[in-house]
């Protein structure tokens, strides 16, 4: 099995879905699991057929969007005899709570499963400001 690969999480304001002019494609909502850990949340999404190269993961404001493009694995001349799933892309987005530290989100992709680690933001520490006497000038 392939080693998990790290995926850069983009922080930007662009439209997460690439606009391409080609024939309409199926778009599916991938099933996900989310569980809590002591450090935050872990999300898994089933994205069969999506590789690290065809996955886009973005955080915009407080919205996490995943978009995975799927390329057909069979040659175009293959004649379908029996079809239980249609080949299409995956899209889903999530609203992140303020508890999540947006800057420290990491993601890996293994065998068509995306894992996103959403760490809890550290408690805001009170910063002590030292008050120094004004240096005497003279």
């Amino acid at each position, binding site marked *: *099995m392939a080693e998990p690969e790290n995926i850069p999480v983009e922080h930007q304001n662009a439209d997460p879905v690439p606009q391409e002019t080609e024939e309409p494609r199926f*778009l*599916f*909502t*991938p*099933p*996900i*699991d*989310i*569980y*809590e*850990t002591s450090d935050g*949340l*872990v999300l*898994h999404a*089933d*994205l*069969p*057929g*999506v*590789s690290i190269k065809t996955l886009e993961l973005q955080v915009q404001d407080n919205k996490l969007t995943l978009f995975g493009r799927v390329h057909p*694995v*069979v*040659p175009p*001349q*293959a*004649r*379908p*005899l*029996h*079809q*239980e*799933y249609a080949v299409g892309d995956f899209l*889903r987005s999530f609203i992140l709570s303020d508890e999540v530290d947006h800057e420290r989100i990491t993601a890996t992709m*293994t*065998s*068509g*499963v995306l894992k996103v680690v959403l760490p809890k933001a550290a408690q805001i520490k009170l910063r002590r400001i030292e008050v120094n006497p004004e240096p005497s000038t003279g």
Partner: protein
Amino acid sequence: MPVFRWGHSWDAFHDFEREVDRLLSSVNFAFQGIRLGRQYPSVNLYELPDEYLLTAELPGSKAEDIELEMGSGLLKIKGRRSEPNGVPEERYRRQERFRGEWERTLSIPERIRDEGMTAEFVDGILKVHLPKGEQSQPRRIRVSEGSD
């Protein structure tokens, strides 16, 4: 955004409406796109001039955990999908992905050269090549005149 309204609501219903709104808005409407209620894994079968191709969506599986058996025109695939170990059930906020053991048996329309079968597993998609075997020649059956 209000997504539920009575035709003519009374004041007494406002709280109720708000509650229904709250419940409905917590339902993820994107769920409609989720392909639930299907057999796991979903498989497709394709035909090419010299082979059949079977594909199955098995995200998160390991190649070594997938078993393939071919015999008597039936292809059996089975395996198990386990979850991250040691995560107690109550820690899940969402659980939509399939877990557990699975098995599918599919009938293959023609003779297959069993020894030529190959399978690959990439990005959670299993692809099985089933090369078509020699077609047996149609056998002529003589009909002889019955003798009384």
